């Protein structure tokens, strides 16, 4: 629906000659796209490391336990909060992208706030429990 993008509210409000408020430029559309890329790269590099550290189960129990012990330190515990935050955003925003592609692009803005809302709820469920597990051991 490329031509219908001209009916988006933000574009109608634009009085300057600068192009703004298209689906992917400016505001929620652009920032969700930026965050999707940044979280995607971060998750990819973690995935590379995570497969290598898990592969240590094939070396020896001692080698695996030494590395997994690093994941249980306070600093890495905070890193896991960032990692899960990145994964949860990427997951929910990915579903948002699919809905924009296959359902209706005009809901992209409200869907972005749905993503943020679900992210907050998910993190409220995860972070306290995870921090208790990290800091009480």
């Amino acid at each position, binding site marked *: 629906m*490329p*031509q219908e993008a001209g009916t988006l509210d933000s574009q109608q409000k634009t009085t300057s000659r600068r192009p703004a408020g298209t689906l992917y430029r400016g505001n929620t559309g652009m920032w969700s796209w930026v965050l999707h*890329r940044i979280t*995607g*790269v971060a*998750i*990819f590099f973690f*995935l*590379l490391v995570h*497969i*290598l550290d*898990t*592969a240590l*189960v*094939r070396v*020896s*129990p*001692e080698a*695996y*336990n030494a590395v*997994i012990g690093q*994941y*249980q330190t306070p600093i890495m*515990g905070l890193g*896991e909060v960032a990692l*899960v935050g990145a*994964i949860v955003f990427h*997951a929910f925003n*990915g*579903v948002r*992208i*699919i809905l924009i*592609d296959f359902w209706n692009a005009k809901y992209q803005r409200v869907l972005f706030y749905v993503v943020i809302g679900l992210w907050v709820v998910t993190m409220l469920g*995860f972070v306290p*429990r*995870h921090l208790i*597990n*990290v800091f*009480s*051991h």
Partner: protein
Amino acid sequence: MTSTIQAPRSPHTRSTKKSGVNWEKWGWIYMRVSGVVLVVLIFGHLFVNLMIGEGVSALNFAFVAGKLTNPFWMTWDIIMLWLALIHGGNGMRTLVNDYATSRMSRGILKIAILVSVVALIVLGTLVVFTFDPCPAGAPADLVASFCKSL
């Protein structure tokens, strides 16, 4: 260097008539299909490993041994491994196409992505299928309790 910039929103046209598979289209579809499956697989993975019981503090060799001797979790992990690495590799390829400006840097970076993805898929698959939960000579307190009965 001059290049022609097409009018915005003009439809994609192929410069040369090439018959065959539209790989970019299938890549686009793959990202969406694998993405939906990965949401389920990774949320399940995070819930079981970080939320149940004592979470990250309970992870050790014996915990992994319990999962990697269970066909359910072996299947889960193998599907997650393949889907996630190909999804991530294809995403990184998109970024390289967008941000690497020379043909040479794009080539080098995409080969590096391909090599990493293939190597880790092979490594991860071998680990899951050749895993020994009770390695000979391992201390009894480090391996799973079911090793005692062997």
